[in-house]
């Protein structure tokens, strides 16, 4: 027996949500975080575009609610660093508190802190290099700082620093991707200058940061700043998971939403390749990952399901066999049900047209799986069974 049914690595928005959803299904769930729950929310004073686009909320009450709901659902919180995840059955996690086994794992670590990718950079963490305006901003009151990045977060951090610093230079490697609304706020802010096409090529320090070298199309120049806040170079948890497929930013690649090639491993939130890095998407990912973990374990942990070996099978219960009987549709009610494999729908439609002509049918119903790699939705099957006398089904590839 495993230590837990589901282990969640990372107790940020996505991780806490995934853990809660899995626990609410009655599974034994542990959520790991090396420091404290909340993920990136810990570094934000205000959550923007939450709970609705254009809205905002203080971050800590949001974190508190996420934690409270997870714990109320029965999630065990552990504040150990997970150093390695070995996918398999069971999943094995190496943590600062010892090894832990689980039936499934949700990777929700988010991304690492921003980095410029320059020599000597790490030595300046806490000595002029920061990735948290809300935490470290007061240290730069009345001083000049640079913010490096191009996204919404970069813009918000710059705006927050502008309340304190004497000058904020936003260095955008190419062009900004932040919204027009934030562009307006940046333009209206005192002490903020935005430089596009700007790359930091060196940091200069004498114990503490004294400046950076910035290269633009016009050449290189020195920028005297006491603080630099990089939001570029953030990396996913590629090294955490054994043999995981990752993208160029070391985020974990999924095959279908939050699912990976490993049936018992799921990815939620910013650690997932192509994640939108928004609060709402992190929550949606968490729900999806929690549900997927439950579904992956249900055959062996659920109270009401039976594992069926398709090569030999088991006898269906009498009531189950009875439920297979269809509705009251007549022979004019014919539908197609595609497995969504390439050309499957076209094949069915071609055959359906021949039958439609042969029987002089007015039209044909149609349904399909959401995609080829997922099981057919039970409600769809029930609907077809009730509404149609004949359903032509595609099986194969």
């Amino acid at each position, binding site marked *: 027996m495993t230590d837990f049914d589901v282990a969640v690595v990372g107790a940020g928005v996505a991780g806490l949500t995934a853990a809660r959803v899995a626990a609410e299904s009655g599974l034994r769930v542990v959520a790991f975080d090396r420091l404290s729950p909340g993920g990136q929310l810990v570094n934000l004073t205000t959550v923007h575009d939450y709970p609705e686009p254009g809205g905002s909320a203080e971050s800590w009450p949001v974190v508190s609610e996420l934690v409270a709901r997870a714990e109320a659902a029965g999630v065990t919180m552990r504040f150990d660093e997970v150093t390695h995840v070995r996918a398999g059955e069971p999943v094995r996690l190496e943590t600062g508190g010892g090894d832990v086994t689980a039936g499934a794992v949700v990777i929700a670590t988010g991304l690492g802190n921003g980095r410029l990718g320059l020599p000597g950079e790490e030595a300046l963490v806490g000595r002029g290099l920061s990735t948290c305006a809300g935490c470290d901003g007061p240290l730069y009151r009345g001083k000049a700082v640079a913010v490096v990045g191009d996204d919404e977060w970069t813009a918000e951090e710059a705006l927050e620093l502008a309340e304190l610093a004497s000058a904020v230079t936003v260095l955008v490697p190419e062009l900004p991707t932040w919204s027009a609304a934030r562009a307006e706020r940046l333009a209206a802010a005192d002490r903020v200058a935005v430089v596009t096409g700007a790359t930091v090529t060196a940091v200069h320090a004498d114990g503490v940061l004294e400046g950076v070298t910035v290269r633009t199309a016009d050449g290189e120049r020195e920028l005297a700043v006491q603080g630099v806040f990089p939001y570029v170079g953030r990396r996913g948890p590629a090294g955490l998971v054994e043999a995981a497929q990752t993208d160029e930013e070391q985020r974990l690649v999924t095959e279908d939403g939050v699912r990976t090639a490993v049936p018992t491993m799921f990815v939620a939130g910013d650690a997932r390749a192509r994640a939108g890095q928004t609060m709402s998407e992190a929550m949606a990912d968490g729900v999806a990952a929690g549900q997927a973990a439950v579904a992956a374990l249900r055959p062996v942990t659920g109270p009401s399901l039976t594992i*069926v*070996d*398709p*090569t*030999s*099978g*088991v*006898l*269906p219960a009498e009531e189950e*066999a009875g439920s*297979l009987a269809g509705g009251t549709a007549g*022979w004019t009610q014919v539908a197609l*049900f595609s497995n969504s*494999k*390439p*050309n*499957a729908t*076209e*094949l*069915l439609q*071609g*055959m359906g047209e*021949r*039958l439609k002509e*042969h*029987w002089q049918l007015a039209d044909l119903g149609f349904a399909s799986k959401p995609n080829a790699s997922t099981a057919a939705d039970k409600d769809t099957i029930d609907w077809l069974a009730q509404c149609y*006398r*004949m*359903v*032509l*089904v*595609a*099986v*194969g*590839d």
Partner: protein
Amino acid sequence: MAPLVVTETFLPLVEAQAKARRLTPRVLVVPHPVGGLNGAELAGRIEAAAASLLPMADQARGTA
């Protein structure tokens, strides 16, 4: 009635699943694969499968 249009590679799987559920599906077997065929090739598959489907459907409806 739910005729299954099955590529031949998947026929053993379908038969095993049917056996497990004590069902006897009406199966229309077409050459594997279907994905990747061009329009002309797919049209040939459709013609062949429809030639089997129509009498099967008539028989099931009782109009054969």
